[in-house]
């Protein structure tokens, strides 16, 4: 239904958009191979030395470990809590289900920075100073909305009659859920897990206020590196993270389909 001109215009913008989005990523990847400590682009040569130096960055391994632990644990907990809540909400039999759904998803729209300072105050006030635990609890709020949003959307497309059918064929209620709902929800589950992991791993506005001198998550550590002594090691680290994400995306595309992740039905 679109005119020829309009279609061409849209495509030009789409390709431009794609290139524009890739630009900083390509720059980082290129800079990571720089033979000199300065970010001189275009490159006068190629070197892998910065990749070797990643491990020797001050405080790198503890930060990586901390970020991974927090990301995995908060994601796991949110997946459980969020999925259960989404089931109850999508069933529609709970009074105020829609309002509840909106509440659970609302932290996504709130400035993370504000939540960060709020949590700082709050934890101090109730005497909750253990950094690791505080980070975990804070990241629950970071990850839960992603799970809630994706699972509620996925469940709203789920036909609960399937559970009834399974029950008449001999499954208990729990059995039907496992045999019928779990396979149907697996894609949404995977997607929410992926988004949550990334959201937690990359989070800075909440983390920045809850980390202390000894425990810093990776993004906070990287911000420190940038402000103190930026060198291509950082670019190498970022490129590795990007490569890892690319692999994750490829796997997700195989398993679930990227267009499904974008929120469109099949």
């Amino acid at each position, binding site marked *: 239904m679109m005119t020829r001109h309009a279609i061409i215009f849209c495509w030009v913008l789409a390709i431009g958009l794609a290139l524009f989005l890739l630009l900083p990523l390509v720059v980082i990847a290129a800079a990571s191979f720089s033979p000199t400590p300065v970010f001189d682009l275009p490159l006068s040569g190629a070197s892998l030395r910065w990749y070797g130096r990643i491990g020797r960055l001050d405080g790198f391994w503890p930060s990586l470990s901390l970020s991974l632990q927090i990301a995995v644990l908060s994601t796991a907990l949110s997946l459980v809590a969020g999925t259960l809540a989404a089931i109850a909400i999508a069933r529609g039999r709970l009074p105020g289900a829609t309002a509840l759904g909106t509440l659970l998803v609302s932290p996504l729209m709130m400035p993370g920075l504000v939540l960060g300072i709020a949590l700082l105050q709050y934890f101090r006030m109730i005497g909750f100073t253990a950094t690791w635990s505080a980070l975990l609890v804070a990241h629950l709020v970071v990850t839960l909305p992603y799970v809630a949003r994706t699972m509620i959307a996925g469940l709203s497309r789920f036909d609960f009659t399937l559970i009834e059918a399974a029950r008449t064929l*001999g*499954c208990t209620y729990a*059995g039907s859920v496992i045999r019928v709902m779990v396979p149907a929800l697996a894609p949404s589950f995977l997607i929410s897990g992926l988004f949550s992991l990334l959201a937690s791993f990359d989070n800075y506005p909440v983390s920045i206020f809850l980390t202390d001198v000894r425990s810093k998550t990776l993004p906070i550590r990287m911000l420190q590196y940038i402000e103190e002594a930026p060198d291509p090691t950082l670019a190498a680290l970022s490129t590795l993270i990007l490569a890892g994400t690319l692999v994750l995306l490829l796997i997700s595309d195989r398993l679930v389909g990227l267009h499904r992740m974008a929120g469109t039905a099949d």
Partner: protein
Amino acid sequence: MSEPAPHLVISAVSKRFGAATVLDRVDLTIRRGELVTLLGPSGCGKTTLLRAIAGLSPPDTGTIALAGRDVTHVPPHWRNVGVVFQSYALFPHLTVAGNVAFGLKVRGAPKADIDRAVQRALALVKLGHLGGRRISALSGGQQQRVALARAIAVEPDVLLFDEALSALDRKLREEMQIELRRLLQDVKATAIFVTHDQDEALTMSDRVAVMNKGRIEQLAAPRELYARPASLFALNFVGLSTRIAGQVVGGQDGMVDVVTPVGRLSARGAFQLGASVIVATRPEQLRLGADHEANSASGRVRSVVFQGSRTLVDVDAGAGASLLAELSGREAEVPRVHDEVRFAWPAAETFAFAAEASP
């Protein structure tokens, strides 16, 4: 000759949702191998009753006994009922064979038995070659058959169909009705259908239960339901009719004389003098011409609708009364619009029902 033992006995079953009574002391007995339809408008309770039989929505009071066992509060997975849902409810993550095998897998049957049962069920619904297909690749009609095969594969005590054909287009639907009835008779299954489509009910059933407001108004074979409706509701719900309001002025021996705007009519019924009644008859009973031994009325033809094997003639009989006549295709004389006509019909095929407020 003794009757086969009742297979499904529903006794005084009631159910309320909040303030609304959805099932009102329903009694129903079904014999093994019988095909019964629950027929009625939406909200009459037919689906609720079906779900109660399936175990998905247990009744508040009353009992349900299946094959001699009291199953009133037994959860569905122990009841051995097969349900075919309106939306088919096929599991999208399993293939056709996977769906059909589901019930047997859950019961832990050995693989060889499962495969055999699946093949048999698919052959019964003529889908033997589609075992490996994904559900999303099937047409509506094919999905319907898979849903049926899945329910049959576990050899349930009773098969329940919840508006199972309503998603099909008309031609396919009519074909499926006939095929389904034949298949069910072949496997000697006991089945209950829920539908609001009277043609479907008449086609497929040994007996039809007309339901209204949570009660069964009439339980009878299709032929009897059509020819001898027990209430105005049953009359209206199944088939077409001529209905004329009037008042009883006399009667005896099971017949009443009724004064109506189109004249004095005689009908089956027993009413007090002065009672307000509706006098009704089926369209095929009306014959062109006068007959002093029978009921008759005249009027001006309002419309003539040709429907292939029959022609429906709608007559304005004056004072707000209408006649609906059905003339068979063999009739030589078909009136035209605006013609003055007179129709006659036998008193024995005329019924009087109490005039009630709109149903």
